[in-house]
């Protein structure tokens, strides 16, 4: 498979067409947004956190295949995880979830979802 075919593997395209956990939560405890001004991509993440654990998660993402798939996989990963654990999530972890080669200029697409997540965790820590 060529690099480009790997980048747009069937799983990525599937997630683009039907993102996981797309939509809203009925009663989110936390939410945050991020956008990439140069491309116009936007992502909004909602979480329901109880006792330091993510119970439910959802997102609305408008963007390219890479950002939509990236946010989908990230949000899927959050469910049932402790915030303590999620605090450690790094760029590499999200790239690993995607599992496809990402060129430098597309990194900000792949990592779009991390920004609202970090913001949520930051707010929680500030409150604590």
């Amino acid at each position, binding site marked *: 498979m060529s690099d*480009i075919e790997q980048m*747009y593997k069937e799983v990525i395209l599937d997630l683009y067409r039907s993102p996981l956990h797309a939509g809203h939560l009925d009663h989110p405890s936390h939410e945050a947004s991020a956008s990439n001004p140069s491309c116009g991509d936007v992502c909004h993440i909602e979480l329901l956190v109880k006792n330091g654990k993510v119970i439910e998660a959802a997102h609305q993402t408008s963007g390219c295949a890479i950002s939509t798939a990236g946010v989908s996989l990230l949000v899927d990963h959050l469910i049932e995880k402790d915030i303590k654990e999620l605090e450690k999530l790094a760029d590499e972890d999200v790239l690993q979830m995607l599992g496809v080669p990402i060129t430098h200029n597309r990194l900000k697409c792949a990592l779009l979802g991390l920004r609202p997540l970090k913001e949520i965790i930051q707010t929680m820590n500030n409150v604590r």
Partner: protein
Amino acid sequence: MKNIRHQFPLLKNYKDLVYLDNAATTQKPQSVIKTVTQFYQRQNANVHRGAYKLSDTSSRLYLQAHKTIADFIDAREDEIIFNSGATEGINTLAYSLCKDIDSKSNVVITQMEHHSNLIPWAEMAKRKGFGLRVIPFDHQSQALDLDALDTLIDENTKVVSIIHVSNVLGVISPVDAIIKRARAVGAYTIIDACQSVAHMPLSMKALDCDFCVFSGHKIYGPTGIGVLYGKRALLSKMDPFMYGGGMVGMLTDDSIAWNDLPMKFEAGTPNIAGAIGLAAAVEFLQEIGMDVVKEHSISLTKYAVEALGSVSGVRLYASSAQRMGVLPLSVTGVHSHDVASVFDSENIAVRSGQHCATPIVRSFTEEGIVRASVAVYNDEKDIDRLIIALEKVKKMFKV
């Protein structure tokens, strides 16, 4: 046009590259690279200063560069101010012209502006409390809507600053009508010629604008050099934008007289190599002839518009507009970034996204726009490759 591509070392180094991101920046011909290299190897010294031969040479070349640019846009050499680029040009004008503006005044731009001709005015409007008015783009007629021009530009309008050719759509603004109306109310007029200057002959006399800005790197010159043209009569009575060395005429204990034009507006050591390199780029264009360049841009754009029209599932924005050199597209069901990535896999360089012109892009789509833009070294084969790549996008994304 023949024998153009081989004058560009980068294009020779990447034989398979189809470079269609020329609205962002163009590649550089050998003559420009050689001029800049030679300057640093044989002519480098600061300008306007030393009594020695080298400084004399560099000063002469730097002055000559003003003259070359002046001839190119049909202006006087003392009306050509070198700066770092269009962004600096508009910012200095925004600061200068808004200095004494009151909250009853207004500034008029268009919906097609690049952020560099929007944000400086928006910021000034916020600080000074004046109104920022926008000439809208009409999607029906695919042109700027001048119906309300006479109310948009009124007695309180102080500045009218408009893009000449849209960097997103390639659509040409009706600058004559807008400048005429601005003149009638006594407003300053500014033309952002970043895109137009690459594709058509420009005459400051014929345009009759007060100011005009463009960047060297979009017309085959180096990065970091740009031009601000201003009418001599206006520049003479305006205060300097920046203060420092090189712009002072007479300095006594209690008074300062500004240097002559254009030095009055070129404080500090200028980008000498950039200016000389830009002059070489202009000479490269003059050798081809701007009429020939224009003809090439028109015919290649037309060829592309027709070719794109035959590809199903591909939308060309403002498809029937009068346009120059820029082709804004989308593939139905595929985000612009993903299209550009697939193009890249075929060695085709295009831009995708918002193109620093959010208002006009958003008026068409939230998904960003794929933009192919042509230059003198592009030909029909490049467009054919683009069409083939579009088919690949459709196949990969099953649309």
